[in-house]
């Protein structure tokens, strides 16, 4: 029998997994569904290193999602949460617009990164260790810092460039 405290793991990892997935699929509800699906599989397989396993499965699910996102109109809802409202800005159109703009800016900045740099950054932001990131991206542990340094620099540059462009448009 597994000695993993799944309840605790779920509590600590689920939000990180959703954040990780959200920056890949850019749909909060879908990110939550995929995180659920990753956990369902983890509970079925009971891997020895569940955290790393979960992120690997989540990355694969997000890849699958990207392939089918254009065709997808509906999806199977496995479970319904207690609370239907998921976004803090729900019901407030202005706040929702702000949120979408922010997401758009970050999304565009992230898209300017190479895939490996982006993946490293998202994994780090989701709480993965250098060792876990190295294993998942097939890097040496010593190369993770370099990858993250490059990714952070590029992200900040791309984000600031977009902000600058927006300011220029607003002044015209």
């Amino acid at each position: 029998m597994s000695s993993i405290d799944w309840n605790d793991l779920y509590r600590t990892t689920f939000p990180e997994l959703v954040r990780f997935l959200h920056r890949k699929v850019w749909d909060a509800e879908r990110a939550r569904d995929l995180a659920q699906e990753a956990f369902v599989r983890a509970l079925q397989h009971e891997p020895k290193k569940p955290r790393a396993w979960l992120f690997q499965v989540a990355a694969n699910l997000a890849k699958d999602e990207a392939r089918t996102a254009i065709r997808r109109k509906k999806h199977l809802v496995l479970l319904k949460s207690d609370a239907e409202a998921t976004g803090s800005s729900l019901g407030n159109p202005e706040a929702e617009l702000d949120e979408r703009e922010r997401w758009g800016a970050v999304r565009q900045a992230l898209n300017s990164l190479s895939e490996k740099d982006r993946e490293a950054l998202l994994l780090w932001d989701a709480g993965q260790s250098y060792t876990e990131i190295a294993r998942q991206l097939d890097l040496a542990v010593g190369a993770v810092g370099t990858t993250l340094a490059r990714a952070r620099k590029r992200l900040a540059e791309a984000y600031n460039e977009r902000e600058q462009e927006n300011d220029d448009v607003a002044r015209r």
Partner: protein
Amino acid sequence: MSHVDEGALHAYLDGALDEYPATEARRIRDHLDACSACAERLEAERGLRSDAHAMLGLAAPAVDMPSFEELRAYVERTRPATSRTTVRVTRLSWAASVMLALGVGWILRGGRMEPPADRTSAAPIAAAEVERSVSAGPAQSIESSAFESRTDLPATAVAAVDEAEVALDKIGAERSELEAPVAVLATEASTSAVVASGSEVSRVAGDPSLEEDESIRASRSQGGAEPTGETALDAAMSDRAIEAPVSTIAVDDAPDFLASTSVVAAADPVEEESARPERRRSESPTAFTSQFNAGRGGVRVVPEDDDRFDDEPLQSVPGFEVVATENIGDGLEFVGTVTTQRLEGEDMMQAFLLEPEIELDVLPVLDPGLNEVRVETETGWVVLRGPRSEDELETLLMRLFPG
């Protein structure tokens, strides 16, 4: 002393130096203590790191966590019987070894390398038991009492098996020349073991390969090899196949199916996932085909012109306990139903009946360990999933069409 590079500065800021080799970590810390230029760079990188973190934080969604208990209950309802399958495959592996050894014993008795007469005399008797078991079909053969344990065999047969296993090393190249009837049986059983081994690789490919154990490495190492009889024999004689889910064993599958399994085994899981082409109905115009993809079980698509599936389907397969029937949809639109039925023990199958025009992508990803058969009817897709071979699932699928 050389300065610290940017990567090391970020590792320092991220608190990851403990994951570096101890000497390297010590060098970096010592250098940062002593070098004012690097200390300045560290502050600049700290600002950059902080900015990047804040930017990512702007795109953080509010997370609504579903109840863990609900999640666990769902998993319990749909959990495939993994412990049981392991036992069954262990038996199969053992059975393959027995049949292999008996096959060799048969040849030896034929005069080329005559072992002592009292040992080989028991082989045909045991072989008869084995033959009956195998011809009874996959499930029955696996559970046959002939394979329950080694002690169930006559003592002389066990001795013959031991003798034959030892003799295997001697005959080496002659393995491919096995021609006697029992030897053929042995090869078929060994083939099953290879399928089982391949399916284990499929599981690993879809799920992360982070828990490398001996069976996985062994499976990978044979990934690119042709599935020759010798490979099959080797697999049958090792523990490689023991952990494979029995649900994906297909005794009657053709050798070309094995080849495709091996190709998948050699592929990188993530790359394979993204590179895998969409399966099209037109790719299987004439016959049922099997397919193992990374992380997925086999999927068999019934050709459109198969008139056995012309009627409107039942919602569940007659003769099996219905555990649950649920609607599929996003809360706004109904797209079909899923009925979960108990096959036996904890083995469950699911029958998905989708509405007309609804595409298959509304279904959850097929879990490793499960196979799937599907047919598109006038009333929409009908999909059956379960821990059974595609042949068995196809038989069950047909029972949804009583006409």
